[in-house]
């Protein structure tokens, strides 16, 4: 009888090779460039695709097994949270508004990221990179789903979540994240990678996830925290992909350096502008604060990011052009953004409010150079008006920046007394911007940004009314019609937190933490 010989079990490296490169082949019926038509036109030169190696050596079978286990744990916690009415254990119903912003503005980006990486997973010429993008594509889809599930319990009891997908596609402030991602995935695959994997996932991701997830933990939201834990290992893999991809491009050819540098300049600034929404959430929407936006910026951007760019200097990469302006903005942007949402609180699908006295004291301490001088007087004025029953709502639409699509709320770098106005001419028209950097992004590719779907302009062009709206009828109320088109549940999704149904219900249901627990 023959002795059966068990083949030697392959090691991690061999397994990875067999399950990735071993499954790939060189096309023979069609020329390679027809099979991969997207990976050259941006000008990035790749001489050896095999030089990219996934540092995690992840294979598909291991990926599914590992993610499946995380999923089981996550859904067990979400279920227990719902069963135990965990939504009543958060600090204060104001906290829920941070979740509304998340489900409206961040969760849809996960889905966009899924689509973008799926495209890359098909189009890159190298199998190692294709596979890494495939995993990330699956991760992002999973994040979109698990975030939705983790927050769905809140949707049963609170307003401002029920039409989040429709809002993402139509509501003015959500065009900021939407246009950010559409800009990224309408670029080529290497630009997308630089935009999302490097600038966003590597340089800026901590500024998004730490405030939201630590904010959730601090405010008693175990459902969202558990999502955060289940996404954490994915995020660290995404960060690694981000830095590995940048190094891969830079090492392949010196001609790649200026192209990558320009993308870093662009996407650092686009990402920074997008994070304005997070800055505001962190300083104003968490009843129990984690740290200020300024502190987070100093820790995660100035310290960590500074070290990163010092490391990349050996490739000829310098700090992004907007770096100094972004660092200077740390004193201001959260306050300016909250003021904007307070202004347009009738047209936002979450509540706004004037911070309480103790909270203003915290803001003064955290922002000694800006809060008392520039921002406290506005808030106190709003509080006085509200006390007289005349809560301030701004009823006229704002001017927007053509690139980031944020209302023109930002002030001159180094001089917060003046709104920053920038403009340029293209093809006989004038275009306006919030900053030198947004203008420069436009000027590099004006043909792209002349197509910007600017919500304010779209409203005036009559594209944000329901099909049955008739602007020729007497008494036609254009702004009311826009809110109807938005599918807002009026006076429930929007307006001030004070007097809202969310506030009343939460109180009547006995929600909230012990007063001491809830303190700053």
């Amino acid at each position, binding site marked *: 009888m023959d002795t059966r010989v068990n083949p030697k079990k392959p090691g991690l490296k061999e397994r990875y090779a067999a399950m990735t490169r071993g499954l790939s082949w060189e096309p023979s019926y069609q020329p390679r460039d027809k099979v991969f038509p997207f990976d050259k036109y941006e000008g990035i030169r790749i001489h050896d695709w095999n030089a990219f190696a996934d540092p995690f050596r992840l294979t598909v079978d291991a990926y599914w097994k590992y993610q499946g286990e995380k999923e089981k744990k996550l859904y067990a916690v979400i279920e227990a949270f719902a069963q135990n009415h965990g939504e009543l254990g958060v600090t204060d119903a104001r906290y829920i508004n941070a979740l509304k912003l998340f489900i409206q503005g961040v969760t849809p980006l996960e889905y966009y990221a899924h689509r973008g990486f799926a495209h890359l997973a098909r189009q890159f010429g190298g199998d190692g990179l294709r596979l890494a993008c495939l995993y990330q594509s699956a991760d992002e889809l999973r994040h979109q789903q698990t975030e939705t599930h983790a927050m769905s319990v809140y949707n049963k009891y609170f307003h401002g979540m029920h039409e989040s997908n429709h809002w993402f596609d139509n509501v003015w402030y959500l065009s900021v994240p939407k246009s950010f991602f559409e800009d990224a995935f309408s670029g080529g695959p290497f630009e997308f990678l630089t935009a999302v994997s490097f600038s966003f996932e590597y340089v800026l991701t901590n500024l998004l996830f730490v405030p939201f997830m630590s904010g959730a933990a601090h405010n008693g939201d175990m459902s969202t925290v558990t999502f955060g834990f289940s996404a954490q290992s994915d995020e660290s893999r995404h960060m690694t992909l981000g830095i590995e991809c940048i190094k891969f491009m830079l090492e392949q050819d010196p001609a790649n350096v200026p192209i990558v540098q320009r993308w870093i300049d662009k996407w650092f600034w686009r990402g920074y502008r997008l994070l304005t929404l997070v800055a505001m959430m962190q300083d104003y929407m968490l009843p129990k604060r984690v740290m200020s936006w300024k502190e987070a910026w100093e820790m995660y951007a100035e310290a960590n990011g500074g070290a990163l760019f010092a490391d990349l200097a050996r490739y000829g990469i310098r700090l992004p052009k907007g770096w100094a302006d972004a660092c200077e903005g740390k004193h201001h942007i959260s306050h300016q953004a909250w003021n904007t949402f307070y202004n347009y609180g009738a047209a936002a699908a979450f509540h706004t409010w004037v911070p309480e006295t103790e909270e203003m004291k915290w803001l003064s301490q955290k922002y000694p150079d800006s809060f008392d001088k520039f921002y406290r007087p506005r808030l106190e004025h709003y509080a006085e008006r509200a006390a007289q029953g005349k809560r301030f709502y701004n009823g006229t639409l704002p*001017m927007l920046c053509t690139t980031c699509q944020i209302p023109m709320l930002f002030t001159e770098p180094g001089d917060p007394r003046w709104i920053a106005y920038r403009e340029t001419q293209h093809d006989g028209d004038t275009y306006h911007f919030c900053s030198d950097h947004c203008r420069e992004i436009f000027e590099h590719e004006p043909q792209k940004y002349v197509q910007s779907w600017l919500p304010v302009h779209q409203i005036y062009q009559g594209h944000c009314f329901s099909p049955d709206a008739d602007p020729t009828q007497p008494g036609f109320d254009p702004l009311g019609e826009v809110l109807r088109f938005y599918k807002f549940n009026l006076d429930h999704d929007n307006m001030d937190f004070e007097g809202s149904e969310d506030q009343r219900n939460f109180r009547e249901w006995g929600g909230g933490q012990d007063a001491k627990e809830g303190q700053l």
Partner: protein
Amino acid sequence: MSITAIGAYDFPAKDVVGNFPAPLLYLGWDQHMMFCAPFAVPVPSAMRFGDLVTDLLPRLFGEHPDFSRIDWAKVQWFRSATLFSPDMDKSLAEQGFGHKSVLRFRTPGLEGLRGSFG
């Protein structure tokens, strides 16, 4: 610069003047950021500057406590960053305002809520 694209790339601009009911005018009151950003409003180019001052500006900015204290004779007017002296009887178009022009004004002595530029 021209765009980096995989093929022919030629798409219409979304915000040309013909797509709006009237040319778009942006209006900002400097150092009064209680109004978080300048406004965007379609304004007929035949509108007299004087009508804009008496009809439109109060509607946009009237809620600010400084508004009633404005000395209109001292107001400084800017077309984008250029200082100019408006003729109240002439139209916006006659004074160089077109689609997506910016009109800014400064009110010396008034520096917003408690001097905060807000």
